[in-house]
């Protein structure tokens, strides 16, 4: 009897302590810091579903215990089970992939596919507006890492080479049907890869983005296509270049939000080709009055505005064209936000002959803010 009673208390007391501790610690911490306990904030808000869910989210985010424990749990899962959490998927040889990117390749699209239709409508409207101004549009869907290195993602794709997801194939078909110029980087990357992991991979192992070599190859392909079309002529600014080494902790590692994992994973060292202004050591910089305007997302930002600077797609493109370019870059906003910004800065279209519009292929499904038709005359947009 006595033994049974002891077991009752041995079970009950620690379990109650476990459930009560986080709330009590949090309240004690806040009181000690002379703050009002966050839990009372529920009384400050009108009881609507949205307010209650916001309160719940805030409470969880501010929890001291959770903030301390969460990174260590992530670390444990990463080390023991090679489980990089919900935002990433573990590939082979330490490669990480962005989970929405993998789902973009894997998931079935519904019929009719509304996001895809909205994307085509937005692209057509943009092309028509530019055409009315005498400007040629080139659409550049950037392959996801999952499409270029499926062999690093799954054993089944060992000999697959570069794959074109069904949604992206549909996009190319639709663009062709509507007479919109698109630059196919899938074919470009496929030719280089030849089904093997190249000595200098085109994408970073622990990042969602391309490597300096990938950016360079893409810039070369885009420049070649534009020059061949005759939309602009080769310039005469002979940029110089130098090699710059950068150590990068991949964005996929940073997404895990665990300093222990960041410390465990060694940064990737990449060699960049930094473009310099002619006859000087000043790094390349955009010129708003250039003939070419480039719109795009973080694929344009990496190495260009990040370290080492002037070594990303934009600088490589300028180097290939032997002329500067202008640009609008918005992380994750390649679908709509860049065009909205262009609508707010109409002067940027002066003197333009070509607009290159880059976006990640997975934006067809997961575009930040969706695909909207943006009028360049008025800065309003029509939600689709």
């Amino acid at each position, binding site marked *: 009897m006595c033994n049974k009673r002891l077991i009752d208390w041995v079970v009950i007391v620690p379990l109650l302590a476990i459930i009560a501790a986080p709330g009590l610690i949090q309240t004690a911490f806040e009181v000690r810091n002379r703050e009002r306990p966050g839990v009372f904030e529920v009384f400050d808000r009108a009881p609507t579903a949205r307010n209650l869910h916001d309160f719940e989210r805030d409470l969880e985010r501010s*929890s001291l215990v959770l903030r301390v424990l969460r990174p260590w749990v992530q670390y444990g899962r990463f080390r023991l089970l090679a489980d990089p959490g919900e935002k990433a998927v573990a590939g082979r040889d330490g490669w990480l992939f962005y989970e929405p990117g993998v789902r973009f390749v894997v998931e079935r*699209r519904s019929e009719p596919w509304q996001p895809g239709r909205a994307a085509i409508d937005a692209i057509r409207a943009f092309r028509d507006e530019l055409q009315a101004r005498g400007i040629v549009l080139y659409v550049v869907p950037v392959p996801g890492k999952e499409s270029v290195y499926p062999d690093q993602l799954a054993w089944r794709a060992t000999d697959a080479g570069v794959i074109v997801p069904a949604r992206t194939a549909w996009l190319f078909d639709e663009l062709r049907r509507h007479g919109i110029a698109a630059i196919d980087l899938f074919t470009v990357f496929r030719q280089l890869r030849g089904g093997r992991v190249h000595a200098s991979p085109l994408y970073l192992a622990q990042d969602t983005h391309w490597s300096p070599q990938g950016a360079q190859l893409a810039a070369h392909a885009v420049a070649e296509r534009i020059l061949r079309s005759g939309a602009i002529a080769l310039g005469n600014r002979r940029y110089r270049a130098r090699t710059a080494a950068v150590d990068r902790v991949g964005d996929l590692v940073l997404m895990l939000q665990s300093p222990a994992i960041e410390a465990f994973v060694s940064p990737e060292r990449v060699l960049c080709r930094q473009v310099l202004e002619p006859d000087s050591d000043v790094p390349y910089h955009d010129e708003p009055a250039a003939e070419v305007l480039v719109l795009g997302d973080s694929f344009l930002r990496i190495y260009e505005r990040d370290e080492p600077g002037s070594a990303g797609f934009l600088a490589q493109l300028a180097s290939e064209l032997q002329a500067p370019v202008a640009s609008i870059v918005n992380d994750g906003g390649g679908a709509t936000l860049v065009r909205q910004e262009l609508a707010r800065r109409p002067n940027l279209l002066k003197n333009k002959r070509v607009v290159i519009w880059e976006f990640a292929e997975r934006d067809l499904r997961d575009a930040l803010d969706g695909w909207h038709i943006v009028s360049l005359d008025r800065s309003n947009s029509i939600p689709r």
Partner: protein
Amino acid sequence: MVFTTSLFVFYFLPLVLALYFSLLEACRRLGASDRACSLVLNAVLVCASYVFYGWWEPWFVLLMLGVTAINYLCARVASRPSVDPRRKARATRLAILASLGTLGFFKYAPFLEQNLNDLLSWFGVERAPVLALSLPIGISFYVFHALSYTIDIERRTAAPVRSGLDFACYIAFFPQLVAGPIIRYNTVAEQLVHRTVSAERFRSGIVLFVLGFAKKILLANPMGRVADAAFGAQSPGALDAWFGAVAFSIQIYFDFAGYSDMAIGLARMIGFEFPRNFNAPYQSQSITDFWRRWHISLSTFLRDYLYIPLGGNRRGPIRTYVNLLVVMLLGGLWHGANWTYVVWGAYHGVLLALERYHGKRGFWLGMPRGIRVCGTLVLVLVSWVFFRAASLHDALIYLAAMCGQSSAGPAWLALPSLLYTRTSLAVMAVAGVVLAWPVQAHDWSREITGSRAMLIHPLFCLALLVMISQSFNPFLYFQF
């Protein structure tokens, strides 16, 4: 509110327990009568339950209050000793119609409209806009609770509640409010007035809660991610499709059984005793056996309030088969307004009828136990495809993939990265062991030895740690 969130575990639950037991202690010290004490405690539970439920959408509470009020008042009229039988029947009918009408309107009106539109469009009639209603969470459960009370009163198998507060507590009781188990009124009538709270019961309740919590977080959620990937894939291969179906079978069992364990455990902590809702269903040797072990509270509800009133097996074999089919069709539809659930119900109804037809003569019963268990498992697994798929078309495509009918496209190449991860394989292996384990959580929690006690704390800590690091946390049965 959801059981497996920080808000519930770290704030709501400790607060409710502290309030409940402080008031219980105060009542005891003041020498209050049992009845007074239970009224005070029921008031605490009702308030807590409304907060718990209103967290999703505060106006849902008003709807629940409406269902509660109408059933309480009608049953009150029907339970008067001197009531005219016709008036009694009218009151009962009104309560049933109002409850089922509410359920029907919120759950099935858009479905009916959609299908009517489809039908009329064949004759060239323009489609009408479909009502955009948000389904109040758990409505199927609390409507069934209310119906159980009204029918029990009408049948005089239970005494009417002594106060509206007791009835509100029965309907809104937060542990079983949104995903069951479906507790019939006569099961808890006595406990609403007198219940025993003890350290032993509390301990066994908290252990059952922890086991349910661990099932949900450690087994159901990881399998849910795998099932989502497989069922959403463009072209799963046969292996992928079977793997996904197995993952979903594990997810739905541990999701729902875990929720039931948590609900029964929470209720037990505060003095209520609910019957078990699952009894090793994947060890069933036939579909009939499966329905004796799966969601027992629903199957017994349907048996007592639908199958038997339809005549059960008393009106000859043909009528028995029809009754089985009708009950399972409606049981399927109860799960959701979608043809996939209707087909799922019909599939089980046909299998039950076939088993009834063969009776004890069937060759199936002559097979070794292992084969019967495996055969039943495969039949159940196939039925889950209809249950999980978004549409009948998707279900058929998925079944075709299970039979090897799919194309090897880019999606097929990349799919293994989402399915065969180290985590999913490890979880599936552990789930297999737990499923085959002869002792069920319900029984395990009652007999706590020293070694079992030592296992509970690390298990709870592990489940909590995993909970705080994951945002994927769906509860499948909430939508029903």
